[in-house]
C-alpha cells in the first residue's frame, strides 16, 4: 500500500463524509444527554432502547452516503489508487470511524449513568449492566452481525445500478431478519430445554430466566450461528473488494 496515495484518498473523501461525521456526532451526543436525564424508569428504558436501535441503524446504513448525491462511483473508481487502497479506506471509515463516532458518547454516558445514583432507575440500570456484561461469544456475534450488515449495505450501494438507497436498506433488513430468525430459533431451543429441565426440578421465574440465558450462551448453537455469520461476513468482504477491483458499473 502506498501511504501517500492512501492519505490522498482520505483527503479526497473528506468533503463527502464531513457532514455525515458531524451529524452522527450530534445525534450521538444528543442521545448521550437523553440517557442522563433524571426521568422515570420506563421513559429512561424507552430512550435507551430506542436510541440504541436508532444508532444501530445509523451505523449499518452509513454507506448510503455514497449514493445520496448522484453517482460518485465513477469518480471514485477512476482515482489512480489500487482497489486495495480504496477498500482499506472504506473499511476504516465505515467499520471503525463511523461506529466510534456514533457509539463513544452513549457508551461514556452509560458509564457515567452507573456512577450517578440519583438518576438511576432499576430498569435502565439492569439494561446497561446486561449490555455491558454480555459473554464474549454473544458480544462477538453482535459485532459480527454489525459488520455483516454494514458490508451488505456497502456492497449493494456499490454494486447496484438503480434504486441503490432502497435496495441497500432492504438488503440490511433481510440480513437482520435472517439473523433474527436464527436468534428466535435459538431462544425457542434454549427455552424448551430449560422448561424440560424445569419439569424434573421446578424453578422459579428468575431461575428459569437465568437457566434460559445460560443455555443460550452456552449451547453449541451459538457457535454455529457465529460460524454462519463469519462465513457470510467473509463473503461480503471479498465481494466488496471485487466490486472495486473489477469496477463494473
Amino acid at each position: 500500500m502506498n501511504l501517500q496515495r492512501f492519505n490522498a484518498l482520505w483527503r479526497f473523501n473528506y468533503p463527502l463524509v464531513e457532514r455525515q461525521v458531524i451529524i452522527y456526532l450530534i445525534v450521538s451526543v444528543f442521545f448521550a444527554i437523553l440517557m442522563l436525564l433524571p426521568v422515570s424508569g420506563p421513559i429512561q428504558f424507552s430512550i435507551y432502547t430506542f436510541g440504541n436501535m436508532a444508532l444501530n441503524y445509523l451505523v449499518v446504513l452509513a454507506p448510503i452516503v455514497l449514493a445520496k448525491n448522484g453517482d460518485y462511483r465513477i469518480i471514485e473508481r477512476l482515482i489512480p489508487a489500487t482497489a486495495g487502497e480504496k477498500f482499506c479506506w472504506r473499511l476504516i471509515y465505515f467499520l471503525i470511524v463511523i461506529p466510534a463516532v456514533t457509539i463513544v458518547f452513549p457508551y461514556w454516558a452509560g458509564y457515567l449513568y452507573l456512577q450517578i445514583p440519583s438518576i438511576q432507575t432499576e430498569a435502565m440500570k439492569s439494561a446497561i449492566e446486561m449490555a455491558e456484561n454480555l459473554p464474549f461469544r454473544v458480544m462477538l456475534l453482535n459485532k459480527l452481525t454489525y459488520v455483516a450488515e454494514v458490508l451488505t449495505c456497502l456492497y449493494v450501494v456499490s454494486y447496484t445500478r438503480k434504486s441503490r438507497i432502497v435496495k441497500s436498506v432492504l438488503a440490511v433488513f433481510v440480513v437482520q431478519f435472517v439473523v433474527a430468525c436464527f436468534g428466535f430459533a435459538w431462544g425457542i431451543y434454549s427455552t424448551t430445554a430449560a422448561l424440560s429441565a424445569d419439569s424434573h426440578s421446578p424453578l422459579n421465574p428468575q431461575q428459569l430466566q437465568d437457566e434460559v440465558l445460560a443455555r443460550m450462551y452456552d449451547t453449541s448453537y451459538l457457535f454455529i450461528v457465529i460460524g454462519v455469520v463469519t462465513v457470510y461476513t467473509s463473503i461480503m468482504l471479498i465481494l466488496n473488494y471485487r466490486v472495486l477491483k473489477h469496477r463494473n458499473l
Partner: protein
Amino acid sequence: MIELTNLTFSYLRNGYPALNDISCVIEPGIRLLAGENGAGKTTLLHNIAGLSRPTGGHVTIDGSDPASDKPEDLGRVFLLEENQFFPGKSIREFAAMHSRFYRRFSNELFYENLHAFGLTGDESLSNLSLGNRKKSELAYVLALGVDVLLLDEPTNGLDIEGREALRHIIGGATGDGQTIIISTHAVGELEHLYDGAIFLSKGHLLYAGNLDDVDERLAFTVTKVPEPEAIYSELQVGRVLNICDAAISEGGGTVNWRLLYSGLHSPLRQELLNILNSPSII
C-alpha cells in the same frame, strides 16, 4: 492509441450484447462518438475507461488494459458523465483534493478554463445551475492532462456562450498524444474540431475513421464518380453524391459530420459505407 479488438459487452450473462464485435483503432486527436439512443455509446466509453470489463475481445490503451488495477493505468483515463457527483463545496476545493492523483494536472489551465466559462471556481457546486456545474466540471477535467479524456454529452445544459467557450477550450486542449472522445447527439456542435468519428448503431460499429480518410473518399466520390451506375440506381447515386458533396467543405479539411451521420442512418447507409470503406484512393 486506443485499440478495440472484437469488443463485445453484455450487461447480463448471455444477454443481448450492448456492444457487438467492435474492432477499430482510435488514434490521438478529438473524436466524435455518435449513434442513436441505445447504440452503445456510454457502454463503449465505460469499456474504454475500464469501468466495465468486455465480455468478449479486449480494449487496450497504448498496449495496456484500462480495466487493470494499476494506478499508473488508471491515471491515464478520465470519464465525465451526466449526473456524476463531484464531492466538495466548490470545484476549486474538489480540484485541490482530486488533482493530487494526476501528475500532469495544470492549475494554470484550470483557471484559464474557468475564466473562459466566466466562473471563479469558488461557487458552491450544490448551488450552481446544471449548466454552470457542467462548465466547472469541464474546466477541471480539461486541465487534468490525462491521455484519454472521455466526455459524455459535454454540451448538455450549456448556454451559447458556454458552447463557444468549450469549443475554444477543446480546440486548444489536445496535447501531444492526447485523445478526447466526445459522445454526443448534437453532432454538429463541435464538428469543426473533430479529427475523426466513430459511428455506432444498435451495438454495432457503423464506421470509424479519420477526418482525412473520410474527406479524401467523399471528395473523390464527388469528383470522379467511378462508374457508380454499375453499383447503384440512378436516383440513389444522385442522393449519395449530394450527401458526399454537402459533407465535404470547399478545399477539404473538414467534414460535415452531422450530414454524414444522417446519411448513415438513412436508407443510403450501405452505399455510403461502401464509399467510406473503399480501399485508399491515393
